[in-house]
C-alpha cells in the first residue's frame, strides 16, 4: 500500500507506457468521479446546513417555555409566588425564574425605546421556564396554573419545533449517509472500469509477469492511471459543485428551512477534501482489482 503511494508520487513514464492507453474507460472514470463529487458537494452542504439547524433548534428547545401573568397590580406578587410554587413541584422542570424589571425593559427596548417606565405600565410579568431533557406535561401544568393563578398563561409555542429539530438531526444523518453511499458507488464504478481495463490487458499482464515484473509494478501502472483520473474528475466536480452552492439565491432568516443551505466560513474548505478522498477510493479500488486479476497469472 505504501509502495503504491510512493509509485503514485514518483511517477515513472516508462512504467506507465507498458500498459496501452485505454481510450474511453479513461473518460468513464473521470466523468464518474466528477459527477459523484458534484453530488457529494450538495450532500455535504445539506448535511452541514441541517446539522446547524438541528443544533440551533435544540438549543432553543432547551429554554422553551415562558409563563405570562396578567393580573391587577395588587395580586401580581401573590400570583407570581403561586406560579413559582406550582413550577417547583412540577416534574420535568429544571428551573424557573421571574424576569426582573430590568430584563423586561431590555426585552421591550427594541419596540418602545430604552426609556420605558416599566414599573408604571400594567405589563404582564414573565417567568422563564427551563425544562429537563424529558420535558414536562404541558396540559397538566396548564390545568394546575388555572387553579392556582388564573392570570397565568403558559406559552410553550417553541414546542412545535421539537419534531423539526429531530427531523433536522435525521436529515444531517441522511446527508452523511449519502456521502458514504456516493463514495461506495464511485468505488464500485471505478472497480468496474478497472476490471474492464485489466481484462482488456490480460495479455500485457502475462507478458510483464513472464519478463520478471513484480505485482506491485504491474498494479501501479493501472493504479496510477485510475487514481489520477479520479482526482482530476473529482476536482472538476468539486469546483462545479461549489459554484452551484455559491450561486444558490440568498434567503433571509424568514426563509425558514432554506436559510443557510450552503457553507459557512471554513466549511467552504470541506469540499476540497473530496478530490483526495476520491483519489484514495480509486487507489484502493484499482489496487484490489489489479491484485485479484494478478492472482490468475502465475
Amino acid at each position: 500500500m505504501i509502495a503504491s503511494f510512493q509509485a503514485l508520487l514518483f511517477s515513472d513514464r516508462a512504467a506507465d507506457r507498458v500498459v496501452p492507453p485505454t481510450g474511453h474507460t479513461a473518460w468513464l472514470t473521470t466523468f464518474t468521479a466528477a459527477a459523484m463529487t458534484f453530488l457529494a458537494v450538495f450532500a455535504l452542504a445539506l448535511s452541514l446546513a441541517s446539522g446547524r439547524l438541528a443544533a440551533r433548534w435544540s438549543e432553543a428547545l432547551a429554554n422553551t417555555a415562558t409563563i405570562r401573568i396578567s393580573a391587577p397590580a395588587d395580586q401580581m406578587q401573590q400570583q407570581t409566588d403561586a406560579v413559582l410554587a406550582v413550577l417547583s413541584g412540577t416534574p420535568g422542570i429544571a428551573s424557573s425564574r421571574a424576569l426582573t424589571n430590568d430584563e423586561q425593559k431590555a426585552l421591550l427596548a427594541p419596540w418602545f425605546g430604552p426609556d420605558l417606565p416599566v414599573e408604571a405600565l400594567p405589563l404582564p410579568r414573565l417567568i422563564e421556564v427551563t425544562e429537563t431533557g424529558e420535558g414536562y406535561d404541558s396540559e397538566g401544568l396548564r390545568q394546575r396554573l388555572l387553579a392556582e393563578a388564573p392570570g397565568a398563561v403558559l406559552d410553550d409555542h417553541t414546542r412545535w419545533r421539537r419534531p423539526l429539530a429531530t427531523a433536522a438531526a435525521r436529515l444531517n444523518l441522511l446527508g452523511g449517509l449519502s456521502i458514504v453511499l456516493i463514495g461506495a458507488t464511485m468505488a464500485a464504478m471505478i472497480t468496474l472500469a478497472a476490471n474492464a481495463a485489466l481484462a482488456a490487458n490480460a495479455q500485457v499482464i502475462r507478458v510483464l509477469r513472464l519478463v520478471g515484473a513484480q505485482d506491485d509494478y504491474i498494479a501501479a501502472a493501472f493504479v496510477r492511471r485510475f487514481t489520477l483520473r479520479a482526482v482530476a474528475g473529482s476536482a472538476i466536480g468539486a469546483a462545479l459543485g461549489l459554484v452551484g452552492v455559491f450561486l444558490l439565491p440568498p434567503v433571509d432568516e424568514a426563509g425558514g428551512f432554506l436559510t443557510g443551505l450552503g457553507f459557512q466560513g471554513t466549511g467552504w474548505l470541506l469540499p476540497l477534501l473530496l478530490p483526495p478522498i476520491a483519489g484514495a477510493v480509486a487507489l484502493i479500488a484499482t489496487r484490489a482489482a489489479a491484485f485479484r486479476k494478478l492472482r490468475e497469472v502465475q
Partner: protein
Amino acid sequence: MIAFDNVAYNYGGGELLSEVSLRLAPGSFHFLTGPSGAGKSTLLKLAYAELLPTAGHVTIFDKDVRSLGRNDVALTRRRIGVVHQDVQFLDHLPLAANVSLPLTVSGKQGNPRDLTDLLQWVGLGKLADALPPSLSGGERQRAALARAIIMGPDVILADEPTGNLDWEMSLRLLTLLAELNRMGKTILVATHDLNLIRQAKAQVAARVLRIRNRRIQLAGADL
C-alpha cells in the same frame, strides 16, 4: 542451476510427465526433444515457475519453487532468459522497447548502445521502431531471443527458437547460443529439429534429453 527431482505434471487429464529427474549444471548445454505434444513446453514452464509440479520438486537456484513467493518468482525470472514458443510482445510498444522490457520492469537503465548492438546482432537493427504485429514469425523469434538475453541471465531456456527460421538463420542462432554457452551460460533448448542438434554437437558439448512415454531419458548415439 535448475533441478527436477521426481517431478510429475498433469493438466487435469492424465499424467503428462512422470518421474522426471534432471539437473542443469552451471555452464551445461542441453537439448530437449520428443514428439509434438510430449510435454517439452510444459517441462520448460516448470523450469521457470510458470507451472508448479503436481508431484516432486523443482529447484531453481537452490530454492524449491513451491517456497517462492510471487515477488521471488519475479526476481528469479530476471535471472532466466526465456524464448517462448508462442512469443508474446506488448503490441503497442516498438520492438526496441519490447526487447528492453525486462530492464524496464526491473527498474534498470539499459545502455542504448548495447541495445542497438544486440538488435544488430540478431539482424533486427533496421526494425527497432517497428511494432510487433508487423513482424514476421522469424523476426519475432529473433526479437524474443534478444529480449531473453538482455538482462545477462545465468540460464537461457529456448522453446523451439528456430521454429520459424530458415536453415541459415537457425545456424546463426545456434552459433549465438553456443557462444553464450562458452561465456558460461546454462542453456536448454527444446526442439524437434534433429538436424539442428547434430549440427550443434560439432560446436558444443551438448547433451540430448528425450521425452518418451512421459519419462525423460538421455539420448545416445541413436539420434
